[in-house]
Structure formats: structure tokens, C-alpha cells
């Protein structure tokens, strides 16, 4: 039977008890399942955090942060120092091109060039970090002969951080109201002046959160460093090439598979430090972002 419009309109509203019960079951079941999905994810998150913090807190002691690694024991001072050096190096290398690209994409959009760059940068985010690490190995460690080194590790991390910084700076600068720019131009400012004196200061909080998040990602990376930074039991001697350097994520991976209690302790301590750092950065940047959203909302 063909359902005509008239037929559809004249159809009585189904108020039978059975239909109402079915709807009610559908509603409760639906909410129940969505809540279940959330609870599953949330409890996995809690499980991970509890494991890392319980075991990590148990293995943390003063010598972990004051001594260097000795075989399967000692401390993690060399790894902590290495993580700081590598991550800061990577970020510092990534900020200038990332920020400049963000400016370019937000201010000089259109045509063929900017969308292509944006597309390539978006795809670069998805390239597995081990591929970037292997690229670093082939080019810097082997071809340029830098060996496992701070330079090779930092540049690999910079490649990973770059698209994130570029994306957040673009978003941040785009949010600066058009009227402000026009006011700047009307006062006779050049393009460079408008961007550096008006857009960048306004976008700075958001850009900073992007940089912080990229720093968190760099601190947590392992795969790109394994074959570019290597590992070292000693403190960094200041050489950029030819000297391997330790880092915390390596300690997690390498020491947990050793059959020694002291090695496990170092792995848990390293996991504790890395996770704590990453969580703090994420929470701080989220708070800053929420604040800046509220702030913008009130100003408007």
C-alpha cells in the first residue's frame, strides 16, 4: 500500500501501552549503553593512572633524581637531563618555522600554495613517529655521520612537533578580530607591523598552549629517539653530534623487560615522571584555554 501524505497525516499517534514501553526501553537502554562506553574509557584511564602513580611513587626516591644510571640500577639523572635537552631542543627548533607557517596560513590564505601547505602539514601529523625516526636515522645518523646524538634526536622531535605548532598558531591568529587588523592598517602600519604588534600578542596565550602541548608530545615520544638519540648512562657532555644521550621513555621500555627488581623500579619511576609531566602540561593548557574562551566571550 502506498503511503500518501494524507494517509501519513491522518495516522493516529501511537499511544498504545506496548509502544510506550518499547520507547522507554529504547531510551533507557540507549543512555545505559552510552554511559557504559564512557565508564569503560574512564575506568581504563583510572586503571592506567593508578598503576603508574602507585608503582611509580613506590620506586621514587632521592637517588633516582640525583644519580646517573649504573647498569640496571642507580638513578635517572642522565635520562631526566636528556629528556629536557632533547624536548627543549626540538621545541626551540620547531617554533620559528611552525609559527611562521601558522602566520602564513592564517594571513595569506587562498590560492594554491597555502591550502597545499596546510594539507601537507595535516598529513605530516599522521605520519607514524617511527617513520620519522627512521628517516632521521637514515639521513642524520648514517648519511651525515652524526651518529646517535642530541642533534639527530632533537631534529626528529622537531619534525614531530612542527605540524602541531603550525596548526595551533594558525588557529590562534585566525581568531584575532578582523577589525583590529583593519584599525592597524588604517593607522598606516605595514603588514609585518600588524602581524607582529597586533595579531601575535593577542594570539600569544593560545600559541603558548599549542607549544606546551607539543612539548608534552615530545617528552612522551620514544620511537623517533630510539635510533637517533640512542642511550647513554652518562650526563650529556655538551656535544651536539657523535654523543648519544639518555631519555626517560627509553628507560621505561628497556628496563621493564630486564629481569631485575632495581631495573623495574627505574622503569616505574621514569613512567611516573613522564606521565606526571604530560598530565600537568595538559591540565594547565586546558585551564588556560578555557580561561581565554571565557575571557573572549565576556569581551564580546
Amino acid at each position, binding site marked *: 500500500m502506498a503511503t500518501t501524505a494524507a494517509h501519513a497525516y491522518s495516522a493516529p499517534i501511537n499511544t498504545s501501552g506496548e509502544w510506550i514501553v518499547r520507547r522507554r526501553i*529504547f531510551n533507557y537502554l540507549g543512555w545505559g549503553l552510552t554511559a557504559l562506553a564512557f565508564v569503560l*574509557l574512564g575506568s581504563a584511564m583510572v586503571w592506567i593512572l593508578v598503576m603508574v602513580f602507585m608503582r611509580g611513587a613506590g620506586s621514587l626516591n632521592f637517588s633516582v633524581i640525583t644519580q646517573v644510571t649504573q647498569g640496571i640500577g642507580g638513578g635517572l639523572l642522565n635520562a631526566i637531563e636528556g629528556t629536557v635537552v632533547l624536548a627543549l631542543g626540538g621545541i626551540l627548533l620547531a617554533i620559528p618555522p611552525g609559527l611562521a607557517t601558522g602566520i602564513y596560513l592564517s594571513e595569506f590564505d587562498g590560492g594554491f600554495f597555502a591550502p597545499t601547505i596546510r594539507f601537507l602539514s*595535516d598529513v605530516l601529523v*599522521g605520519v607514524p613517529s617511527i617513520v620519522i625516526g*627512521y628517516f632521521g636515522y637514515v639521513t642524520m645518523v648514517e648519511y651525515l655521520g652524526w651518529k646517535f646524538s642530541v642533534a639527530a634526536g632533537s631534529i626528529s622531535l622537531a619534525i614531530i612537533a612542527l605540524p602541531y605548532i603550525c596548526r595551533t598558531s594558525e588557529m590562534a591568529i585566525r581568531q584575532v578580530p578582523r577589525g583590529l587588523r583593519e584599525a592597524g592598517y588604517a593607522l598606516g602600519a605595514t603588514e609585518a607591523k600588524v602581524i607582529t604588534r597586533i595579531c601575535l600578542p593577542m594570539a600569544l596565550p593560545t600559541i603558548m598552549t599549542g607549544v606546551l602541548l607539543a612539548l608534552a608530545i615530545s617528552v*612522551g615520544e620514544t620511537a623517533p629517539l630510539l*635510533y637517533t638519540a640512542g642511550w647513554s648512562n652518562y650526563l650529556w657532555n655538551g656535544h651536539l653530534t657523535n654523543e648519544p644521550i639518555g631519555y626517560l621513555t627509553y628507560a621505561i621500555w628497556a628496563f621493564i623487560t630486564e629481569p631485575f627488581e632495581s631495573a623495574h623500579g627505574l622503569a616505574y619511576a621514569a613512567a611516573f615522571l613522564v606521565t606526571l609531566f604530560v*598530565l600537568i602540561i595538559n591540565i594547565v593548557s586546558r585551564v588556560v584555554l578555557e580561561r581565554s574562551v571565557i575571557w573572549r566571550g565576556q569581551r564580546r
Partner: protein
Amino acid sequence: MKFRIVAGVFASIVGGILIVIVLFLGIYAWPAMRFNGFHFLVHNSWSLGSLYGNPITVHGVEILPGARYDILFLIVGTLLSTLIAVSLAVPLGVGSAMFLAEGVPGPMRPWFSFFVELLAAIPSVVYGLWGYVVVIPFLGHYVFPFLAKWLGFIPIFSGPTGSGYGLLTAGLVLTLMIVPLITATLRDALVNQPVGTREGALALGASRFETLWNVLLPDTRSVLIGSSILATGRALGETMAVLMVSGNALNYLPSNIYTPISTMAAFIVSQLDSALQDPTGMAVRSLAEVALVLCLISIIVNSLARILIHYRGRQTVRTI
């Protein structure tokens, strides 16, 4: 005007990196590609050959006698673990996104979502640690025997359950790692649906869940597809966590869902040390070919997602 040029030069560096990566990996892997040919993708035999033998020349390339570098088992392992992860992550992601967008009371919403998004912030190697220390014993002792007992009538669930390392463990850990991508993107899309649509459905007598399920969710279909493809790309390339829980299988295909596997990304890490023992360097070049294949797959997957989102979604997708 000068400013624009300087920024443009930097921008082309960022864009150029991807091209340079593919180019260098390609050039470096070229001798391996000549030696391996198409066998690379369809056979199961990764072997460095006789390390003490004298190198021989095949197809104009120097290799060790008996060396083969074929990686079908890696491709299968990568695809299957990703398949498990994505097929679990999509329902979980949709469910949690619906709950976070509409189910949680208003003021708590951002913090609840933030809690789930933190899953994406946990470093891969910490997932690996968690999997290695906690999940593998748990799954190996309790869950897998249970699954084999009750789902054993399905062929892939039957058979020896192993020790906990394997395909399903890798798939489960990957699921957790990619779910936040889907949840965050879909939640944003649901929250940003026009108020009118929502009010229209409510005015017609639909309940809040019916509105969400029948009206709001269907409109976010392309966002869901786009973010799922991005999540697929992430699962394909995940390294450390998979390395620590997959069992690092060599040269065999999984016979059931508990079998140890290895993925392309994990294999590069686990094999580079031994590949460096090969004096002809062909093993390292073959690993570069693995990296190149992985890179190209992820480029294809990500381009697909971006194009889809660009033309269909018109909503921003979070990369987190």
C-alpha cells in the same frame, strides 16, 4: 611584502618535510626494492641469511647468502590489529561522545570530556608499560581462557590462548589509544549541531535520547567517518605500545585471535639492531622499505580523511 616571502619560505619547509621524508626513504630503500621486488608484500620470510657467508650478488645487488626480506606477516598483523582496534573504537567513541555531549550535566561536561581526552595524552610507551605489566597477565590468565571457553565455537576464538601477548591484546591497547580521537571530534560535532534541529525534534515529542540518536547523530556521519579514518591511520603507525604487547612474531600468520603478531612499526624498532649486523646493509635498506610502505599507507589514509572532512564535514577535526 618581505614579511610574506619569509613566512612563505618557512611554510614551504613545513610542506617540504613530508616530500623529503618519502624521497629519502625511497632513495635509501631503492636497492632493497630492486632485490625484493613484489615478493616483499606477498611472502612470509624475513631472514638475514648467513651472517658469516660471503656476500653474493643477485639482480645487481649485494646480499648475504640465503637472505630474504618478505613481510606479508607484518602487513597482516598491522591490518588485523588495526581492524580490531577500529571496530571496537567506533562504537565506544560514538557511545562516549553521545554521553559526553548530552548525557552529562551541563557544567561538568568539559571536565568529563577532558578526562577521556587525556587518554590521548598518555605516551605510547606508558600504554606499553601498562599493557606489559598489568593487562597481559590479566588477559592471559582470566579473559582469554574464558573467551576460548564460551566463544570457542567461532573458529578465530578457539585454540591455544597463549600467554597474553598477541593480536587481541594489541588490538585492545590500540583501541584505547585511538578512541579519544573519535570521541573528541564527534562530541564537538554533536555539541555544534544547530539548536533549531534539536528543538524541532523535541517539539515533535521526541525524547532527548531519540533526538540525539535519530536527529543529531545522523548529521555527524561524515565527521564520524573522517575521524575514524584518522584513528585508523594512528593505529596503523603506533609503535611502542604494540611492540611491548604484541609478542613480536616472526614469519608466521596469526591462526587465532590470541596469536602473537608484529606490526610494521614495531618490527622496525625490534629488528634494526640485528639488521645492523648485516655487512651488506641490505637488511637496513629493507627496513627502510618497510618504513616507506608504512609511510605511504599512512599518507594515503590521512589524505583520504582530510579530503573527506574538507569536502563533506566542514567541521574542524581535532588532531589532539
